């Protein structure tokens, strides 16, 4: 079932009420001067900030940049991750001789690459891509490898019976069987890619939504800053939904087995 459409269509009364009550309480407390934070804007002020961002067009430019970095970085990570994952999944020998290296590199916090990338590429999109690709690679690689290694041996026997070549075994048997697992990797990786793009823009390349948050913070414009953060949150939700929808269109069967993971 196209879960996303149905889930949003069902209206959650108590859930909406909670959000409205929280926002109202926030508004009243800030306007009434009960909360003494000088930089906490009321929700209405944040909405006004959002409107200001939308009307100046700055928001669109920032969003476009971040989106571009996320999608480019994600695409590179996915292509590399699936290729390496397939190789490692198909060959137990290769796996034995490289798994420990992967396990040593994998826990490296992605953000630690920011200074290295900055040294090499300066304030550029390349810096951002390095910071996105290296960490976003792992979920795809590990899931592809795990999915391929977990393909039932009988399926390989079927391939042998049909005298399929090694290449067609991979294309016709291995990839379809590992697809649900690979798709989980793609989703994890996309979420990571957005987080890392924001990080890279905050510390490295000064453009995009990540930089917008820092810029508005340093300009002491909290309403704009909150609006930036909300836009980032919405972008994250939309990206995830778009990917789910795409997966649903392209691989309906696999997407059913992927859900909930």
């Amino acid at each position, binding site marked *: 079932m196209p879960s996303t459409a149905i889930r949003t269509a069902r209206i959650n009364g108590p*859930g909406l009420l909670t*959000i409205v009550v929280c926002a109202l309480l926030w508004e009243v407390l800030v306007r009434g001067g009960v909360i003494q934070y000088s930089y906490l804007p009321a929700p209405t002020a944040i909405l006004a900030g959002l409107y200001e961002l939308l009307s100046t067009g700055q928001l669109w430019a920032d969003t476009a940049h971040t989106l571009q970095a996320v999608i480019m970085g994600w695409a590179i990570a996915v292509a590399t991750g699936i290729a390496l994952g397939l190789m490692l999944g198909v060959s137990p020998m290769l796996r034995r001789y490289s798994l420990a290296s992967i396990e040593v590199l994998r826990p490296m916090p992605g*953000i630690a690459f920011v200074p290295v990338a900055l040294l090499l590429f300066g304030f550029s999109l390349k810096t951002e891509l390095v910071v996105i690709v290296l960490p976003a690679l792992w979920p795809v690689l590990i899931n592809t490898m795990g999915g391929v290694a977990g393909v039932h041996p009988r399926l390989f026997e079927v391939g042998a019976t049909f005298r399929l070549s090694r290449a067609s075994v991979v294309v016709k048997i291995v990839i379809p069987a590992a697809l649900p697992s690979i798709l989980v990797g793609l989703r994890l990786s996309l979420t990571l890619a957005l987080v890392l793009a924001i*990080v890279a823009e905050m510390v490295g390349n000064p453009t995009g939504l990540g930089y917008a948050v820092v810029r508005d913070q340093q300009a002491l414009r909290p309403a704009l800053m909150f609006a930036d*953060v909300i836009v980032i949150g919405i972008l*994250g939700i939309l990206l995830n939904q778009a990917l789910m929808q795409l997966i649903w269109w392209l691989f309906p069967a696999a997407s059913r087995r992927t859900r909930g993971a």
Partner: protein
Amino acid sequence: MRAFIKRMGPLLVNLPPLRGLLPLVAFLVVWQLVQPGPSPYFPGPFEWWRATLRLAHRTDLAAAFLSTATTFLLGLALAIVFGGVMGVLIGVSAFINRALHPLLEFMRAIPPPATVPVAALLIGYNEAMKLVVIVLAALWPILLNTSAAVRQIDPLLLDVARTFRLRRADTIWRITVPSVVPALLLGIRVAIPLTIILALLVEMLTSLPGIGALMIQAQRNFQSSEVYALLVLIGLFGLIVNDAFVVIETVILRSWPPRVAGT
């Protein structure tokens, strides 16, 4: 997410054979050999070692490391407490779940790094801010895993509680809490890398003392070998913490569910 971790389980528990380190070692050796003199961008691994010694000599290394590690541990502990308690409450009550679900979904969707400037502006540049940011990020995997596990408790167990006429609080304490421990541990495993990343990011952005601050400082001074040295250090830290937690998890789960005498 959980299927992913489950699949990782055996890989990590039976740590992969050491010969798998071969490609990494070969890569570093080639790097060193290709590198005849000091390079501004790709200093060889020996240079990293010398930079580590230099950093240690300036004595700020141990303190910075301690500061990052303390923040990491405190943040993780707070996230476990909040995430565990909220997860159980949300899982136990369908109404609380329904009421909080949309709000929590939205908060979870906000990439944690974006909360750093917000927290800095509201709370200021101090330890409390570091912890708030980290807890806000590390909370979700723990909370969601726990509440999902509460909902998947075998109904038979709850029937047993009803048969014994246990009070609601007793049911939660004796049945719900022990049943969610494995899921809680999974959540913590996901939260650990997030916690390390956030600790470093806060330090990079705010220059609060720590490894992150040292890294960004080294980068600004174009001390590339120091940058690589710190990268290796933080990588080792991540590796040790991850492996240590896998061991802890294996030990706890080996005797789970806890056997009561006489059963």
